[in-house]
């Protein structure tokens, strides 16, 4: 019951936070240099050149503003947006008037979700053992090699690794296709590229977390009670050292929803990243607000999920 109450309370906080995020985003766009909201005038500027009377120009601008909901004061625009956003209706975007934003998102979201989950799964499967081995074999060549590889994942941009992989596996060895997102073979390289960053972070966190736990009194107690290495590490150390890992996995996963644009472009993966990054560069404010909304919602939901998982990992944690 405590958990249900806790979730409901957190959902309410998310709701309020999202409203705040949207208001701040709107205000930032309003005050940003470069005339975010002047597109109606830009569109109508051709009318000024042509033989358009001011009345006709006014009607023309009005039509455009109505289409994009710009015909009301800013506070009302925000209110209208919020009303629609919580029903997942986002209207048209400047840069793509062909279809509503929610349709574009609905098409791309499953792709991004698949990429994010596969990549994070790979990152966890490889990153955690890598960190454990490094911690258990601290200051040995195994530790150094593990950390060297995790360092590579952090230092070299995923895009560069992607290009190298394409040249090796697609051009020379011809064992994998260069790009695409239909067959499992096409997914291998993008998933690895996206996984490298989180994998490195997880491995390093796992190593330091496990080292930290291994120095705790209760581990010493467990050993003094006659526990074997295997029993102490698996039963006592690992479970506790996983808590910080869970903390970082949540935000990392949320970041993957939008932070994979380079990989998407490189491997022609039709995900959300391309859509959202273009929104900023093209000053497409309906899409920009929506991307902020989706990203914020993802981060908040991930954090909630992480907090719920805490309880299963550490029974001392109570939801109040």
């Amino acid at each position: 019951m405590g958990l249900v109450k806790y979730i409901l309370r957190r959902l309410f906080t998310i709701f309020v936070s999202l409203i705040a995020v949207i208001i701040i985003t709107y205000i930032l766009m309003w005050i940003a240099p470069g005339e975010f909201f002047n597109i109606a005038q830009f569109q109508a500027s051709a009318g000024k050149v042509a033989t358009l009377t001011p009345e006709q120009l006014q009607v023309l601008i009005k039509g455009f503003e109505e289409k994009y909901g710009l015909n009301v004061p800013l506070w009302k625009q925000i209110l209208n947006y919020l009303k629609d956003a919580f029903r997942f209706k986002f209207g048209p975007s400047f840069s793509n008037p062909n279809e509503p934003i929610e349709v574009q998102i609905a098409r791309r979201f499953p792709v991004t979700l698949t990429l994010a989950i596969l990549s994070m799964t790979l990152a966890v499967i490889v990153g955690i053992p890598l960190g454990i081995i490094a911690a258990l074999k601290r200051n040995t060549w195994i530790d150094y090699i593990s950390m060297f590889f995790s360092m590579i994942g952090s230092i070299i941009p995923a895009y560069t690794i992607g290009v190298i992989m394409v040249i090796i596996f697609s051009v020379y060895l011809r064992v994998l296709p260069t790009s695409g997102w239909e067959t499992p073979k096409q997914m291998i390289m993008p998933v690895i590229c996206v996984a490298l960053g989180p994998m490195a972070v997880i491995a390093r966190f796992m190593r330091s977390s496990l080292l930290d736990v291994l120095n705790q009194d209760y581990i010493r107690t467990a050993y003094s009670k006659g526990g074997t290495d295997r029993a102490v590490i698996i039963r006592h150390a690992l479970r506790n050292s996983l808590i910080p890992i869970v903390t970082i996995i949540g935000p990392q996963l949320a970041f993957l929803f939008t932070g994979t644009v380079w990989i998407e472009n490189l491997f022609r993966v039709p995900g959300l990243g391309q859509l959202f990054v273009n929104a900023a560069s093209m000053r497409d404010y309906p899409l920009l607000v929506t991307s902020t909304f989706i990203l914020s919602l993802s981060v908040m939901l991930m954090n909630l999920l992480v907090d719920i998982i805490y309880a299963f990992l550490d029974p001392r944690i109570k939801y109040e």
Partner: protein
Amino acid sequence: MLSKKVLIVLLVLVSIFLLSGIVNGQKERVVSLPYWDTPGLIPYYWQAQHILAQGTIFEGLFGYAPDPKGLGGVKVVPVIAQSYKVSKDYKVWTFKLRKDKKWSNGDPVTAKDFEWSFKYYASPKIPDLPAWAGPHQFIENFWAVKSGAMDLDKLGVKALDDYTLEIRLATPRYDMKEWLCVAQGVPIHRKSVEADPQNWWRPGKIVVNGPYVPVSWTPGKDMVLVKNPNYVGERGNVDRIVLKFGGLGLQQYQAGELDAAMIGNVAEYRFVLSDPKLSKEFHEDVMDCFWNGYQWSRGFDPIMDNIKLRQALAMAIDREKLCKEVLGGRALPLNKYWPDGNPIGDKMKGIPFDVKKAQKLLEEAGYPGGKGLKTLVFYITGGGDPVVEFIVDQWKKNLGINVIIENVESGLYWNSYVWPNFSPDAKAGFTVIGAPMNNLEIGALMKNSDHTVWFYDFPTSARKRRHELYQEYDAWLRKEGGLTEADWKTLIEKRNTLYAGFKRIVDNEPEKLWREELTRPPLWYEQFDELYEKWKAAKTNEEKTNYWRLAGRVLTDQEGFQLWYNNLSSQSKQAYRWRYKTINRPFSDAVKIAHYALQPMQDRYYMVPVYLAKAQWVKNPKLEGLMLYKFSWGPGFFNFKYLNLKD
């Protein structure tokens, strides 16, 4: 376990199937090409699909055919039009259509399709139609119809019969054929649009009249086109075209996943040339519909009023060295808006690379050895720009001028520094500019250099005032008042003063074509008078205020025009007169005199050409008929109906 008999039957069936394909020569010819990411298939939006609509999935009355000697590598040919005639004043165009053209569902393509489509584009239902990118802006009553003030039936487009289309224009256009080649010149299929106005354009629903039909589309990934079975007309032998958006083009080509790939940088270019196989499949062409260079920022620092300073800077750049060392041979030096070998470029004088002369000019400008000149700013976006770094280095080395490079966010850069009328926040300095032709319309021969006349070549004080007037123009929409005659008094006085100024301009302007443009109805003072009359008849305060505001805008607009005209340099006025002469004649004649307009604009040194980029690509040797798109958005490939894949 399958019985032997069943296995034999299956084997025979498979063999028959395979053999039948070989015997009948039914092996599908598939071509994969790189393409711009396409966010939809509605042809009239200024997005990647507008290039696809030009001859691949849609066709209009006219289209492009390959012509290596033609501007943009194309020539304009009739496609659905069979013949045409035009009135003496170039305002009424009548087209006879071919009778054999069909939509992909088998319906005939008729003049009524064009009439309905053009009216659909013009209707207020599409308030965000980028009218500047299409021919409709010139059609009689287009703007009144678009604004909803006039009924659709009044639009100057009419099907005289099933195969005769008449287009009446508001102003004479000599280049309607050229304009009708672009995406907004194509018809769309009425029945399918009306059946599903939101989704008619999606693969599976879309009915097209071009040689290929889209059957699948994933934005960010690819699009698949197959032969339109009902297409009548010239077409290559390719059955299926896969357009791939993004990815590593050259590597996809090397892996056999693309039949052509653009070369994107010097490293790829060198790699291709060093590879025995790729070097044989290498092609290049010059993007002569663009010019690349720099322009002065559109701020208000009076430094830029000094022509000798502008000239000195333009002459102090070693363009040969830039193209060789920085651009690695992927560009040609360009010191005029059109290159040598082009009918316009051949008649133009280039800006010489002459350091001594540049130094002398700088001295005459009041800055000997660059002394006394403040540090200028070169605005860029997206990180480092080796071309800008080279230019800045040349100015430092050859003239002793300090220029710092300032990187700004892309939206801000394009909207506030490169393409706005004025940039009040910009410091004295420059931005990069790649100025293209959007299509083959005659005005595009100016390659955007007419911005020199519109926004640069009058004194800083006047430019500043004009910017203020733009702001006043917008501010009028929020002004309170206009309820009493007293509110109109000042406006009427201003109207009369402006009228006197306007009359002086019209009476003294020597160029007839410019005079005609200025006096084309509805005239600004007629609009003002009409608004005043409407104000008198208005019943509510809201209406009264609105008419008063609109009248205020009319006057502000006119004040801006007079300020501009009266402060233009004589060279710019002369250039503008030649511009009118150029755009008011057929394309072939316009090319012969365009240099008279371009040369004086270039000689103001506000917008300075530096290099001409090359398009470079590798191509499957078996693939023929690949057309390069050289206009804005280019380089890329388009008009796929000429593609042929040799066995």
